[in-house]
């Protein structure tokens, strides 16, 4: 019975993919997004039931070729991620109905609608995959459909570069996954996902391959560089899906593998924890400096992925140290943060999409004062910002608190070295949380408060209702998952001692109300006199007097200047030979893109060098080719004699 929900969702999404390609009209696009919304409702019910009952749902296998079965299964883990997909898709599909109409041509609109449905279908199927073949096939469909969506504005140079970057990274990720799965298949002799009762030394290669493969896709430092390129290039609704859902699908894949291992090793956990902490802190530090709204959000995604990986690393460490309760707390924290991040990051991307749509620019220096022009968007954006900054009583606060709790209780661990590591990573996580709060104060303040800095911000108007409705849907999910977090976790049989956020929320609202009443009713006089204060000789407040984005983040930039690694270069010319009369000069502050310049480019150069050497083998000379055949024959002869 329950499986029927998935079948309906699949049919709806396939129809949603085909429909806009067959009939190019606004109506068919509307119907297409309507179908994705319908599928999300079915998925919500399906995932909710699976999560609540804990039943495992196995679908009949589909055989395309002998030995190539597609099996689908759903357990609690996949149920949780299906819920995440469904929640985000419900909001994004409503938002997209109007948003897609702003694309440049009819063909692009149709393509965007079709590919969005295909993208959602692929992500859903990856999560439901029961074996490696099914997983990889839908993983590739997911990657390619998202690549085409990133490239939707294919004439722009920026998009082409972003698309190429994304293509290389996603192919690299798939290559590592293939290697990982092949080595697993060699070990187990089966392509099905199941428990892996093998010694950890046998699983080291699959672990490293899958960690790298999923890490690239999830945007873990140092494989994160594609995110700040791909997210700004893609349409905002797609950025929301990519950042909100696709990154989580990578985390799902990694968790699926990790949880099936009975005996992991401690260094795995340490590696994941360190990579996670680094991603978290570097992600937020880079985000603080950013002034492109979507790129800033992309860096923030790296930060949050880092936090999730921190939780996974903690889970492994606690599990191996025998502290099951803390292991469960960390894992639940990581999964809950993945869910929450999906909600508020999608909402933020949709909000950013609305702002960009209204102003025509992504540069936050050009915004300001949008609270008066776009009040609804502002409110919704504020909800997401408060959540992501981890302020109580929101969901972001709960999931981060779960990880902090796990850290705090870890003092009982006997290993002193491990203790030091945990203290260091705890302080990194604390720094990350604080910086994230500062980051979203900056983003919200500079974008929505004060006076409009440019004409485009001045002329901005509120976006159409469907877009607001889509965002509102996600905002409601955000609020509900925060306020009812302890109840949701209790419903899933996780007794983790989380404080009741509803109560906390009510207390907070009550306190605020009381303070307001107290302020109103206190004071010496109730009669008001209003007079203009001394304006320091300034007649009017101008936008130029406001804090700029760069100005706001300057103190942080100064503190972390070692990480930003700016390079200052200058040239001078003099009028005389003794260099005493200055004539002219230039000075340049160049921000070194550390990972790009020191890691990606050297690797790219090395690859291009090797390929140019290899391409010399293909010289079009008959003799050379006969020589190759000759060498191949000799090698084969030797091989069959001694090894076969």
């Amino acid at each position: 019975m329950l499986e029927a929900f998935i079948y309906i969702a699949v049919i709806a999404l396939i129809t949603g993919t085909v429909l806009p390609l067959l009939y190019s009209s606004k109506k068919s696009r509307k119907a297409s997004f309507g179908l994705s919304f319908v599928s999300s409702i079915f998925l919500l019910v399906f995932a909710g039931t699976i999560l609540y009952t804990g039943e495992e749902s196995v679908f009949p296998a589909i055989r395309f070729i002998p030995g190539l079965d597609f099996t689908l299964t759903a357990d609690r883990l996949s149920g949780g991620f299906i819920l995440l997909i469904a929640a985000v898709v419900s909001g994004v599909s409503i938002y997209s109905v109007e948003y897609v109409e702003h694309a440049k041509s009819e063909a692009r609109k149709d393509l965007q609608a079709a590919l969005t449905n295909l993208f959602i279908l692929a992500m859903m199927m990856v999560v439901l995959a029961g074996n490696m073949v099914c997983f990889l096939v839908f993983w590739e469909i997911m990657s390619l459909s998202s690549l085409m969506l990133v490239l939707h504005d294919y004439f722009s140079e920026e998009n082409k570069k972003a698309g190429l970057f994304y293509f290389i990274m996603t192919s690299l990720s798939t290559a590592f996954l293939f290697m990982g799965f092949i080595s697993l298949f060699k070990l187990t002799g089966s392509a099905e996902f199941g428990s892996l009762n093998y010694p950890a030394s046998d699983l080291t290669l699959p672990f490293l391959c899958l960690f790298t493969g999923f890490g690239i896709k999830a945007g873990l430092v140092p494989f994160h560089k594609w995110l700040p390129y791909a997210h700004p290039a893609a349409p905002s609704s797609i950025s929301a899906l990519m950042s909100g859902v696709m990154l989580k699908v990578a985390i799902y894949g990694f968790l699926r593998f990790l949880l099936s291992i009975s005996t992991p090793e401690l260094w795995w956990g340490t590696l994941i924890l360190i990579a996670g902490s680094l991603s978290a802190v570097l992600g937020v530090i880079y985000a603080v400096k950013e002034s492109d709204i979507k790129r800033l959000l992309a860096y923030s995604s790296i930060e949050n992925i880092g936090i999730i990986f921190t939780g996974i690393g903690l889970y492994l460490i606690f599990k191996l140290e025998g502290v099951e309760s803390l292991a469960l707390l960390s894992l639940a924290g990581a999964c809950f943060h993945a869910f929450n991040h999906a909600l508020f990051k999608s909402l933020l991307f949709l909000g950013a999409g609305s702002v960009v749509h209204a102003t025509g620019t992504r540069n936050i220096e050009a915004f300001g004062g949008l609270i008066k022009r776009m009040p609804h968007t502002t409110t919704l954006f504020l909800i997401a910002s408060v959540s992501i900054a981890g302020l109580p009583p929101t969901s972001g606060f709960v999931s981060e608190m779960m990880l902090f709790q796990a850290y705090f209780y870890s003092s009982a661990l006997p290993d002193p070295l491990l203790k030091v590591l945990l203290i260091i990573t705890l302080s990194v996580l604390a720094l990350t949380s604080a910086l994230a709060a500062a980051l979203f104060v900056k983003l919200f303040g500079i974008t929505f408060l004060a006076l409009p800095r440019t004409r485009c911000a001045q002329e901005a108007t509120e976006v159409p209702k469907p877009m607001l409705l889509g965002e509102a849907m996600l905002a409601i999910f955000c609020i509900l998952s925060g306020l009812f977090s302890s109840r949701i976790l209790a419903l899933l049989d996780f007794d983790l001692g989380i404080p009741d956020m509803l109560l906390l929320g009510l207390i907070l609202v009550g306190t605020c109300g009381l303070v307001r009443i107290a302020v109103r009713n206190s004071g010496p006089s109730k009669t008001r006199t209003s007079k203009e204060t001394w304006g320091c000789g300034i007649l009017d407040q101008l936008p130029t007097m406001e804090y700029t984005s760069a100005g706001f983040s300057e103190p942080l930039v100064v503190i972390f200047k070692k990480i930003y690694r700016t390079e200052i270069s200058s040239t001078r010319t003099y009028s005389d030979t003794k260099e005493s009369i200055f004539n002219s000069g230039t000075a340049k502050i160049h921000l070194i893109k550390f990972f790009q310049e020191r890691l990606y480019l050297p690797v790219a150069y090395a690859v291009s060098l090797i390929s140019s050497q290899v391409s010399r083998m293909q010289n079009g000379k008959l003799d050379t080719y006969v020589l190759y055949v000759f060498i191949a024959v000799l090698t084969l002869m030797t091989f069959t004699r001694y090894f076969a």
Partner: protein
Amino acid sequence: MISSFIANPAFLEDIIRILFVFVLITAAFTLSTRNIASLLTVYAVQSLLMVLIAIFLYMIEGNKTLIAIAALTLVSKVLLIPLFIDLIGEKIKISRDLKFNYLEPTASLIVSMGLILLAYVFLSGFFSELIMSKLFFMGAVIGLSLTLMGMLVIFSRRKVITKAIGYLTMENGVLLFGIFVADLPFIIEILIVIDLMILVLLTTILAIGLDSTIEEYHQRLQTLKIWSGSGD
């Protein structure tokens, strides 16, 4: 007296062994001779050796296909093909192929020694389970070595004619291997000969039409941008 020798299989086997040595010597000549006319003679001699081997083997085994193969080889490879190539040689007025690719004659000879050794080691691994007389095993080894040496000739010599001779040598190797091991059906042998005829015809077209070397042919292709041109 002669008839008593001929009736003795051990004697015939010895003769075949001596012929194997001659075959190897002709192969060595094919690798190192610069004069095209003598190269052609060497090929004719090599083919004649094939004919003789087939006849002696027939005397031992009595398989009539071997006689048919001998006749076919005599007509095609000893008489027709060398004659035809000789005609081409006269037409394009090239009597020598002086330059070598990758391997000079001395190196080629050393490599071919290695090839014989490799063929021996390779086949000894393969045929260890099969019950096979030493002569047949030797035939297989020489056949395989000849094939590989033919291939060596194809990529180490430059002129189209010498390359064609390399190919013909390879075919001789296949024939030898077939006679001793695989028991090739006669129809396949006929098809191979037809192939060779076509090869020689194509060689004529290439050699006369395109100034006799593959390099020049390649250069023409490059000017036509058929290759990407990354080689130069």
